[in-house]
């Protein structure tokens, strides 16, 4: 009976390392750049004052450090839809694909929506992905500060965030992390509303979820 559970468990190696396109479309962003600085979304404003809803990830009290060095809580993302992914910079297999999937998603967003959605990459590799390493990754992969935040945190806090996102992971001998390939759409309140599981998936469902989040956010949000 249980054998079904174990049938076909394999961890797959998606070894295609895609070259990543560059060029985040800052020019398409209709939103005025906050305070004219180059700070990423995580680090522009003070934390949301609104009380998080019961299913909001923004209840988490854990503290994260951005690649620009600022310490923030996830609540800073309150008010706008967010696409969240766990990754690590030295990933040889799937993360480059995941990140390019996110860029594809960003490009698939209709104009108005594109300026309204933020992306956050949170590192699993708490030991090696220092803010400096993340900053380098941002530069290398052309992740503009207009919409992309890169965060690193404490191992326990990553484990907790992963648990909330349903992401399983473990570190192997060579320091690679085997992990679920999932990206998650959070609405303006920080509730999980959609997850795309697997690499190279059609971004349509995520786009639809983000549009809805945008509409709902407009009704209630800031």
């Amino acid at each position, binding site marked *: 009976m249980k054998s079904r559970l174990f049938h076909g468990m394999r961890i797959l190696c*998606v070894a295609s390392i895609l070259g990543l396109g560059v060029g985040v479309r800052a020019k398409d962003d209709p939103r005025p750049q906050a305070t004219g600085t180059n700070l990423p979304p995580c680090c522009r404003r003070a934390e949301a004052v609104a009380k998080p809803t*019961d299913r909001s990830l923004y209840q988490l009290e854990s503290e994260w450090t951005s690649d620009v060095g600022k310490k923030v809580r996830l609540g800073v993302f309150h008010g706008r839809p967010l696409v969240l992914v766990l990754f690590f910079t030295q990933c040889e297999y*799937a993360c480059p694909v995941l990140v390019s999937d996110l860029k594809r998603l960003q490009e698939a967003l209709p104009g108005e929506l594109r300026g309204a959605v933020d992306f956050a990459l949170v590192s699993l590799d708490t030991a090696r992905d220092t803010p400096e390493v993340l900053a380098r990754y941002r530069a290398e992969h052309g992740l503009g500060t207009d919409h992309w935040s890169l965060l690193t945190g404490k191992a326990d806090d990553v484990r907790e965030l992963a648990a909330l996102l349903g992401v399983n992971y473990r570190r192997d001998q060579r320091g690679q992390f085997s992990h*679920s390939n999932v990206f998650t759409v959070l609405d303006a309140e920080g509730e999980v509303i959609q997850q795309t599981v697997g690499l190279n998936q059609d971004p349509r469902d995520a786009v639809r979820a983000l549009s809805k989040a945008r509409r709902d956010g407009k009704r209630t949000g800031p």
Partner: protein
Amino acid sequence: MNPARNRLPVACRTLLVAVALWHGSVGALDSAGVPAFPDLAVIPAGVHRPLFRTPDEPKEIPVAAFQLEISPVTQGQFLEFVRANPRWRRSNAKRLFADEGYLGDWSGDLDLGPDATARAARPVTRVSWFAAKAYASWKGRRLPTTSEWELASAAGFARADGAAEPEFRSAVRRWYGTPASEVLAPVRSGRANLHGVHDLHGLVWEWTSDFNSALVTGDARGDTGIERMLFCGAGSQGATDRGDFPAFMRSGLRSSLKASYVLPNLGFRCALDLPRPSVSSPSR
């Protein structure tokens, strides 16, 4: 949302055949002579052989000596915790951190029910991973890692390697083959293992800190495209010991869990690092 969930009750046969009361050397000194709290036992350093691994992963994971509670956390103990931490009371707990049904067998926020005295001695169940983690840190402790838990549970009644002890092996198999009964036995009804730890097998499933490190889906039915796309990593993996059915069950359960789940036969116990550096001991 997760189809694996419907199958959980089947997956979760806990076992209840408790062998007669038998107390081992509970809370004894470890080989290094470090005194433990009476409710903790020292688990000597050892290795855990993961059931599944990728070629990149070691066959054996070294586990440092640590302390483990000799029995699962009881409802009575958990009641103290929610008394002191109102946010973890049944009516206050946020859905993100505990599914509906959290402490669902209690009569109220601070009320175990009519048979409160009996219940107080039974293991607390219907607690999410977040709740278990919060309890542990309130106690100044932590949840054991899966490797630590598996290492502790591998010890037999009389030998460090339970697999080499026929009596232990058959007791464990019997336990895992017996459906869970409605009413859980009080903790420590089961025979202690070599280290003085009770109920690792035979009472409830237990949360571990890194239960979500298993890269096995709870709902794998074959090599569908999506399964292959699920995980990053390398190569296929094979089981280490195909004969260790209970280990398959634990691994299967863990991989099907989500951190907010609450189940009628899933509880937890806490662990604690050994005090360090230990008092100058001749053995080190």
